[in-house]
């Protein structure tokens, strides 16, 4: 029964990875930018949340109401200030700019907040759980995180396929030369896409922060897991990313069950195995994002 418990915890963890990966997929889908600063930006969100919670004493969940729009604004400015220009330079420039940004952001957070671990307290919620049997209990917080991950992915999926801006995003992705002929400014579409992506990063960063301890470098470690979720699930599929996150989470939980120091390693090996034997992922291109 311990194994079943590990699987359930792993599935819930996968929701968090998918939540973090959603923004990564969105930016890649629209602009072909792999945002190497994604994890560092999640930590920026976590520290903004920390400042709000410590300054006002509100609950972390209320702080999210402020963190998400702040991060969306950061994304909008970042696209106009850095990425649109990097896209024009072309080649490796967007990747290099994102990488530079990741290092600068992580170092700045370290200078301001030190590399000591921080945490956001959620009071009684952090220990609340639903007891299913003697061995199996589901934490309320992981369940909420998982639910938010699913809702965000579903909302993005609907938005991209139905909303006018979503349509423009798909068009800018498919044919960036033709879109301006229709009177749409690609750069503005890109800026709004990055704003939405960083809004989801804001949520992901806050859920990372309430889940446990975090420090400025924690985000980049999580970026690796988010990326693995994307590849395991299959590029270009948001639901695939959720499936990939769950596979990765279960692999890590089962690995930890064998030996606490094996968790991350087993997850990484599962990722490499998928890369070797099923490089298009579990759900390749089910729905394009």
């Amino acid at each position: 029964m311990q194994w079943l418990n590990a699987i359930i915890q792993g599935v819930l963890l996968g929701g968090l990875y998918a939540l973090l990966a959603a923004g990564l997929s969105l930016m890649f889908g629209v602009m072909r930018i792999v945002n190497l600063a994604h994890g560092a930006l999640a930590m920026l969100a976590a520290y903004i949340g920390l400042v709000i919670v410590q300054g006002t004493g509100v609950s972390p969940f209320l702080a999210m109401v402020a963190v998400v729009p702040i991060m969306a604004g950061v994304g909008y400015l970042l696209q106009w200030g850095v990425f649109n220009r990097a896209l024009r330079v072309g080649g490796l420039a967007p990747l290099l700019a994102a990488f530079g940004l990741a290092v600068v952001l992580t170092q700045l957070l370290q200078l301001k907040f030190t590399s000591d671990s921080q945490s956001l307290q959620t009071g009684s919620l952090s220990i609340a759980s639903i007891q299913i049997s003697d061995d199996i209990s589901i934490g309320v917080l992981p369940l909420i995180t998982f639910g938010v991950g699913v809702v965000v992915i579903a909302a993005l999926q609907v938005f991209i396929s139905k909303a006018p801006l979503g349509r423009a995003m798909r068009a800018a992705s498919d044919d960036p030369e033709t879109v301006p002929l229709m009177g749409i400014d690609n750069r503005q579409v890109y800026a709004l896409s990055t704003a939405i992506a960083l809004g989801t990063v804001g949520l992901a960063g806050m859920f990372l922060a309430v889940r446990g301890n975090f420090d400025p470098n924690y985000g980049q470690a999580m970026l690796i897991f988010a990326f693995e979720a994307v590849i395991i699930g299959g590029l270009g599929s948001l639901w695939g990313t959720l499936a990939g996150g769950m596979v990765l989470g279960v692999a890590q939980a089962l690995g930890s069950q064998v030996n606490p120091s094996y968790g991350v390693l087993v997850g990484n090996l599962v990722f490499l195995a998928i890369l070797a034997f099923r490089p298009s992922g579990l759900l390749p291109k089910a729905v394009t994002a």
Partner: protein
Amino acid sequence: MTQAVVHPHAKVKRATKSSWVGLAVIVVLLLVAPAVPYLVDKGTQGSLVTLFSLIVMATMWNLLAGYGGMLSVGQQAYIGIGAYALVYIADTVGIDPFMAVPIAVVIAGLISFPISFLAFRLTGGYFAIGTWVIAVVVMEIVQQVPALGGGIGVTFNGFSDLTPGRRIAYVYWLSLVGVALAVAVTYWIMRSRLGLGFTAIRDDATAAASLGVRVTRSKRFVFVVAAMGCGLAGAMIAANTLRVQPDSIFSVNYAVFMIFIVVIGGIGTIEGPIVGAVVFFALQQWLSDLGAWYLVILGLLAIVITLFLPRGLWGLLSGNGRIRLFPVGYRLVPPVAILDVTHEPAPATSEG
């Protein structure tokens, strides 16, 4: 670029006047550099070894990204493999440390070959994070091996019968040979057929493939060479610091260093990583009192250069490539001097 009708008396040249000057500078440097251990103290020699290791890893990263279009964030895997292989072969197997270095380099190359098949499943930014994951996995595996000191690491005892002064001099000479080899191999690759192939791949991979350029094979060759170079850098670091710890030798900071060095110096040129390494090293020493601020300043510099000066400092110094210390391109010298058509390997412009 000028449309030139090739006159029967037109010639294709590779070297320019500046490259003969460059050759003279390199010859002088190679004559003076070996005498350095007789002239400066141990600490300075140690710093020079660090600088040389930075030049080696930046040159290798440039070969991967600048010429091959493969942005790797995982070269620290081979730095660590080179360092661990040196310590294991010299201390446990008992081979002479100076013989152990080339063996360590070969081991790094051998391990990178199967890894390339995994990494090449991905392109662009996903290749970048994929190589990073592989580096993390290599570290996690090393941490599980008791013979390699597990999570604690190992101390290098191969030089314990040498006096400290003699040891650092030997390590300095070893590193000097290493850095000269790394630059020479890169120069040779870029002047060869393979280098011409890379220029073609960069301009249009599909067209290059249709003309018979073996795209994947060329990339795999460079991937393995870059791994060997980083293995060499790792062996140099281990011989210099005498201590190998998994967390630090596999640190992603090495990837940060090489990327910043190449971007600041000038991606896609042989001179760029050398200039960048010197600038990076000088800034690191100069800003050392500021602690982590030096990485912030370097990172901002790298972003600004990426966006506004894609050819880097060397592009600025050389007048956008008019000065070439290492002539790897072709120049058409027409009988009428005003026409100058250049065909020069420059930064990769397309991903993957």
